């Protein structure tokens, strides 16, 4: 038996899907989180029959006439995949909007069961809905559900009703007139009639305590949080708090315990190996595998605390307000206000962020967003931020916060450049976002989000990062003739000879040594590799508790071990964060941009942006701190001038093209 879960965006479809299947798909307190269909079997304690019930969670849609690809998935599925029953999830707090889609679903001749979700929120608002009357008016069963609750959530009754209606005929409450669908006026008239029909139903079944012309508590809070002057400083403070808690106070305390365990394990294995084992094998196992992977895993608690806090912010409805605050800036630079959604999703992982650009209708805005989303610091980049903030800036919360704001700044500047290059600087968009209800964040959902991220982090550390560390360890142990390199001849290793030409280009950025260059290169495979590779090439297994460095290098300071100044470290961080993302995210960009010119243009733009920003960070920072420019200023300045000059040339060409188009149209 196949069950389709449909409804408007942010009506709680995925939360309900997770509740009835036991899955842990990504949920969020805003519209547009689900962009693909997901399948799962209904749990045995809800399904009392012997028949297997497969539930399919579909992206949110406002109507059966899709405007974006994820709405298309929903429409195609219910029309062509023959689901046995449709569960239409209706937001009880906003039935007048939801029932338009419901009346269309009722015309498909598939039994429909309505899950009147978020009933708890409706009760809190002291609104009432006459369930029996609504069911009679629509001609289908209506069940009140609270998919976020463990008890009395209505899910058992919902599944029982689904089993009961399977195979039954569905009546259509809205009398469909014959309309020529190619005639836009007739279609518009039909939509108006449908809205009128829905309005009449709502008027008879719903009794709202608070009318829309009265100011609610939520409106009062929004006047402050989404205020056009206060919104940004509040967001900055919130992010600073999140970073301070996760990377200065709570995270490092837990991380210290974890790295001590890893160190203990390292010591046990070292003891087991003894002195009879080949030093090459010993180094491969201890430094390459345990040390390299351990150095990355050491940051796990910081990441977990950060994702826990971000999940709370998302769940309480605050991130929806951030989208509204950002819209003002985004629409001025030619982006869609909807662009903020992929970007916030991109803070977890750039891949789903890039994929979420499908919700944007305008092709140029969609491609621009897909190109710029990877600039947001993703989960993989967070350990890199944590490492540099911890080692070079005493774990200051401002480092992470400023990287987020720098990313937003780059996105705004990037969009300004792209609209000019594409000759569409006058294009404007309008963004209507349904603000999610404020609610007390679910600790359970935040914990689930935190552990699914932790699991992902461990899997990545145990697979890609482990293999990369092994490769790096081998490459730095041998030369091209596959002889073990002699002590003091590290520059002749395979790794050093590959990374050295790249390191040469990085001299004007303040980190032109092969060790840092090789870490930046492996970062393109997965950003966490930056840490893994640094750990392997500098033989540092513990970045959290740096006391052990005394034993390794006679220094308690990682900065001295790496030979970096604070300014050069910041430049290295900027370079790693704002150059192209990992290969997997690049692959997602390729499939979403659907155009080679855009794709290679995007990669080139990201590379140029990372290089130019790192150059300015290092050279200006060095000038301020030492009153002289850093190493390689002149060749770097020439290269950066060429990059900036080329971008200006492209912008000029784009504007000429736009003017020619205007003249041609006139």
């Amino acid at each position, binding site marked *: 038996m196949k069950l389709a879960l449909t409804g408007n965006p942010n009506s709680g479809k995925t939360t309900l899907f997770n509740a009835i299947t036991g899955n842990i*798909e990504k949920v969020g307190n805003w519209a547009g989180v689900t962009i693909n269909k997901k399948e799962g079997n209904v749990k045995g304690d809800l399904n009392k029959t012997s028949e297997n019930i497969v539930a399919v969670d579909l992206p949110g849609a406002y109507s059966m006439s899709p405007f974006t690809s994820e709405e298309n998935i929903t429409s*195609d599925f219910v029309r062509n995949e023959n689901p046995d029953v449709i569960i239409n999830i209706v937001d009880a707090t906003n039935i007048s909007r939801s029932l338009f889609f419901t009346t269309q679903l009722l015309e498909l001749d598939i039994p429909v069961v309505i899950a009147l979700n978020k009933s708890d929120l409706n009760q809190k608002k002291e609104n009432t809905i006459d369930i029996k009357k609504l069911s009679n008016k629509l001609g289908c069963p209506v069940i009140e559900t609270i998919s976020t609750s463990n008890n009395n959530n209505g899910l058992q009754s919902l599944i029982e009703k689904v089993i009961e209606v399977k195979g039954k005929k569905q009546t259509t409450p809205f009398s469909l007139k014959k309309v020529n669908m190619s005639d836009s006026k007739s279609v518009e008239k039909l939509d108006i009639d449908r809205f009128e029909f829905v309005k009449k139903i709502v008027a008879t079944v719903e009794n709202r305590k608070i009318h829309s012309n009265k100011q609610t508590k939520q409106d009062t809070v929004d006047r402050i949080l989404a205020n056009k002057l206060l919104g940004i400083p509040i967001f900055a403070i919130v992010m600073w708090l999140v970073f301070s808690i996760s990377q200065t106070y709570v995270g490092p305390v837990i991380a210290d315990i974890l790295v001590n365990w890893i160190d203990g394990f390292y010591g046990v294995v070292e003891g087991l190996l003894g002195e009879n084992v080949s030093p090459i*094998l010993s180094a491969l196992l201890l430094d390459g595998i345990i040390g390299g992977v351990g150095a990355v895993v050491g940051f796990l608690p910081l990441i977990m605390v950060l994702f826990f806090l971000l999940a709370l912010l998302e769940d309480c409805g605050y991130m929806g307000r951030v989208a509204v605050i950002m819209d003002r800036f985004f629409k001025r630079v030619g982006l869609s206000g909807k662009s903020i959604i992929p970007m916030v999703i991109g803070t977890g992982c750039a891949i789903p962020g890039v994929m979420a650009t499908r919700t944007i209708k305008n092709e140029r805005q969609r491609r621009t967003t897909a190109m710029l989303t990877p600039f947001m610091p993703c989960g993989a980049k967070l350990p890199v931020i944590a490492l540099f903030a911890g080692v070079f800036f005493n774990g200051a919360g401002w480092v992470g916060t400023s990287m987020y704001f720098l990313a937003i700044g780059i996105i705004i500047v990037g969009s300004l450049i792209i609209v000019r290059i594409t000759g569409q600087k006058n294009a404007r968009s309008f963004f209507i976002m349904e603000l999610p209800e404020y609610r007390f964040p679910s600790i359970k959902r935040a914990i689930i989000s935190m552990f699914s991220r932790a699991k*992902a982090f461990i899997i990545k550390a145990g697979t890609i990062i482990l293999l990369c560390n092994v490769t790096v360890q081998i490459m730095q142990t041998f030369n091209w003739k596959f002889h073990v390199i002699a002590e003091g001849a590290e520059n002749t290793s395979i790794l050093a000879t590959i990374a050295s030409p790249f390191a040469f280009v990085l001299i004007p950025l303040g980190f032109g040594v092969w060790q840092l260059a090789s870490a930046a290169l492996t970062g393109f495979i997965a950003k966490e590799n930056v840490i893994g590779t640094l750990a392997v090439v500098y033989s540092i297994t513990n970045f959290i508790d740096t006391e052990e460095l005394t034993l390794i290098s006679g220094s308690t300071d990682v900065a001295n071990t790496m030979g970096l100044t604070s300014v050069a470290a910041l430049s290295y961080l900027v370079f790693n964060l704002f150059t192209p993302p990992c290969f*997997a995210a690049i692959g*997602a960009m390729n499939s979403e941009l659907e155009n080679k010119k855009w794709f290679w243009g995007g990669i080139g733009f990201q590379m140029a942006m990372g290089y130019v920003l790192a150059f300015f960070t290092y050279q200006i920072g060095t000038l301020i701190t030492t009153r002289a420019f850093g190493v390689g200023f002149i060749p770097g300045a020439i290269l950066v001038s060429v990059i900036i000059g080329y971008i200006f040339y492209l912008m000029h060409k784009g504007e000429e093209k736009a003017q020619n188009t205007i003249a041609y149209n006139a």
Partner: protein
Amino acid sequence: MTNIIVCIVILAIIILALAKIYFEKKKGAKCVGCPYSQSSDGSRCRYNKRM
């Protein structure tokens, strides 16, 4: 003998890591380990077309 055992352990770790990557990719993950980056079903957008 100890070297052979260490060699086998290292190889086993590498093979396990490769096998995990293989199975994750087979399941459709674009990014190994990432919980929300399963591959798309290939359906493309029909932009600006009202069906």
